[in-house]
């Protein structure tokens, strides 16, 4: 499903100063697997997620998802891949505060311009699934952190992507909301989604639904 082969990522700040965030890592994630990337801040977890989501390209090595060499994709094809195959849940939700809940959720559908009925059906499904139907017309800036998190998950899920990527999803949530999020994860896993989470929240390390914990340290997988 997802393979990272000899992947390195080096940021060139200037001619004499390079920052190596990943160094020759290899990782294979199977379809339907829930993998947690564990590590301290700056260890390279988010870079791995960005590489899987084709948000960035490796400096060396290759990222293959569903037999597609995504690290070699030109930008326009990478956008299509992200739009069709990836649902991304960000630490700070990255919702657009001036739009309503339903407008935020519908955003990933805009590039494909589906028929109104189809879009409404998809919207209705995720609103119900993540229990935010009663808030659909509210502006997202008026929602609580937990509700914003649900909107972010609904938005990531509206396209029914094969892969869900979450970067520190519980960093801004209290314990109860974090447990709610784990319930949602269970739902997504039962639907057969491949889930990759980068976190240093210990809550994830003993979960039954987690298939594998991968420790990332100083740009290497231990």
């Amino acid at each position, binding site marked *: 499903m997802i393979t990272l082969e000899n992947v390195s990522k080096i940021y060139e700040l200037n001619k004499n100063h390079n920052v190596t965030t990943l160094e020759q890592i290899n990782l294979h994630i199977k379809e339907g697997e829930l993998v947690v990337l564990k590590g301290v801040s700056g260890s390279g977890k988010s870079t791995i997620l960005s590489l899987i989501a084709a948000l960035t390209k490796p*400096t060396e090595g*290759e990222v293959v998802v569903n037999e597609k060499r995504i690290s070699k994709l030109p930008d326009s094809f990478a956008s299509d891949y992200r739009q069709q195959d990836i649902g991304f849940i960000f630490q700070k939700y990255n919702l657009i505060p001036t739009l309503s809940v339903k407008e935020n959720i519908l955003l990933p559908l805009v590039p494909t311009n589906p028929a109104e009925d189809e879009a409404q059906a998809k919207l209705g499904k995720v609103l119900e699934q993540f229990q935010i139907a009663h808030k659909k017309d509210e502006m997202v800036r008026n929602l609580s952190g937990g509700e914003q998190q649900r909107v972010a998950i609904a938005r990531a899920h509206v396209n029914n992507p094969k892969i869900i990527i979450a970067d520190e999803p519980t960093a801004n949530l209290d314990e109860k909301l974090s447990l709610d999020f784990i319930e949602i994860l269970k739902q997504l896993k039962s639907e057969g989604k491949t889930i990759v989470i980068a976190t240093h929240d210990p809550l994830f390390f003993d979960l039954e639904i987690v298939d594998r914990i991968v420790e990332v340290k100083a740009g290497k997988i231990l």
Partner: protein
Amino acid sequence: MILAPEVLTLLIINGIFLLLATVAFILSVKIFLKWDINSTTKTQYTLEKQSFLAATIIKYIFAIKLPLFLFFVFTLDKISTLLTGAMCAAGVVDATEYGTYLLILKLLNLYLFGFWLTLHYLDMKSPNLPYSKIKFEFFIIAFLFLVAEIVLEGIMFQAIDIDKMVSCCGTLYSSASTSAIGDILNINPTLLLGLFYGNFILMVLFYKLKVKYLFAISNITFIIIALISLISWFGTYIYELPTHHCPFCFLQSDYYYVGYAIYTALFIGTFYGIRSGIMEMIGEERKRSYNISLIFNTLYLLIVTAYPLVYFMRNGVWL
């Protein structure tokens, strides 16, 4: 040297082109030497990033070159008022020995850049970037033509002496001229028109029969025959003067700038016609090129045919 504002504008833009195109050229050479799309090395990823930069530069140069060509012709026309004897752009083109070559080179470069853009378009349609290497090889050659054009343009404007008398278009494009123009203007009009309309009918036939290579070749011959017949015969009906054969005067306001429409239709039509042959050569099926080519070539034919027909209907005689 003439330093009219329009000439200065052209020279400054050329300077910017040269700078940017040199960057694209250096990157193209690197890509040509080291490109391997299957490789996952640092070098290849860097080249892929650089290829997008180079392609963006080339695209923008072309996007500006297209209107700049019309501006160049407009400038020649404008500065003709500064040269004693010149009545239109023809006098400026003939004012130095470089003018004609520059004009031909400019047209050739527009076609070259257009074909480069075609390759780029095909390349970007596939995630494997199948034409990247060939398109940058092609740019290496196109760059040399571009440099030649920029240098020649500078030399031409440098060489124009405003104190020197130049010939007007009436003398340059006269059947009494001893140059090749004189020979062209002495071609039998019936033969010329037979070739022009015959070439067009063949083009339509090749379009209908989907004989793609012949369609492209008929477009190449169409440019030549269309330009000769325009100067030799159709142009005289635009001017309504049997002895006036200038290919530039009808770009002026006196003729409602119709020359821009005529040349644009001809160059777009033939460009897409030749492009369809290139597409066929690299195994790409694009019906749109054929359609655009035929539409613009037909438009060209209708515009130039309308002038003698209208003249005949109004006056009952041919010139």
